[in-house]
């Protein structure tokens, strides 16, 4: 009998022991453990699956090791565009946002859209306006930027065409 259960991911791709340094591997495993712990502490105390997935994803968004929130990849013009979604299995209620640029934790905005918005999916400036009206925490200046992602973007700009997701091929 399984009372509660949690699974998390931080992206998939061309991962091998040749492409990840031991230090990076240690950091990623620690980050996964922390995010898992954030969700488990809620579930083990009898909390909801919805609270658990939000807490776990917020932890992953705040960790620069992953392509979400802080540590996101850089878009063509040099800025950040973040997407997120939440779904509640009790009711099949859902909320999603796309192309937001100033929200520290897009997953929490997606949940707010689900619970307090009249629509399921908001994008761009409208999603940002909804966030402001509902007190969603903005990101501090420079929050999303990490050196590794900017180097990837520089490499991309030198190619002059196409798109790519550099070290973790996808995700």
């Amino acid at each position, binding site marked *: 009998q399984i009372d509660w259960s949690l699974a998390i991911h931080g992206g998939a791709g061309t991962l091998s022991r040749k492409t990840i340094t031991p230090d990076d591997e240690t950091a990623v495993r620690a980050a996964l453990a922390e995010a898992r712990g954030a969700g488990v502490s809620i579930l083990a105390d009898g909390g909801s699956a919805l609270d658990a997935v939000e807490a776990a994803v917020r932890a992953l968004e705040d960790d620069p090791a992953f392509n979400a929130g802080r540590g996101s990849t850089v878009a063509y013009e040099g800025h950040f565009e973040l997407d997120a979604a939440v779904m509640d299995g009790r009711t099949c209620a859902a909320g999603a946002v796309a192309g937001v640029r100033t929200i520290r934790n897009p997953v929490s905005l997606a949940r707010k859209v689900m619970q307090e918005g009249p629509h399921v999916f908001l994008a761009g400036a409208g999603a940002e306006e909804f966030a402001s009206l509902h007190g969603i925490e903005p990101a501090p200046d420079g929050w999303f930027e990490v050196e590794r992602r900017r180097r990837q973007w520089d490499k991309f700009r030198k190619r002059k065409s196409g798109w*790519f997701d550099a070290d973790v091929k996808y995700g």
Partner: protein
Amino acid sequence: TVGAVARDRHGHLAAATSTGGLTGKRWGRIGDSPVIGAGTWADDRSCAVSATGSGEFFLRAAAAHVVDQRMRLLGEDLQTAAEAAVAEVADLGGDGGLIAVSADGASAFAFNTRGMYRARCDSTGLDEIAIFAGE
């Protein structure tokens, strides 16, 4: 991309996915992560799913919803349905993976890449953190 799926003590499921997308994306490109049924899905009757990978292919496969549909319509178990959904993505030319939990609390990983950052645990003591395929 990052994601989480969970089943709580009351038997309820939830899923969440978040991403920065692709380096150099333009024209307002959106992948599967925020699209309900492609990269994110939860229904207490079957499963909760969060996906990561080549988003255009997960969109075309409606990958997360495929897991749900295979469980409910074909009676497949979670792991079988998850692997079948990733196989459908692969048939379209995509790669990546997904995580899922089912209404009975089982959990599953499925991916066709060389690795996926992943972890899972449950109330019975299951406790895993892994990166590479085969771990």
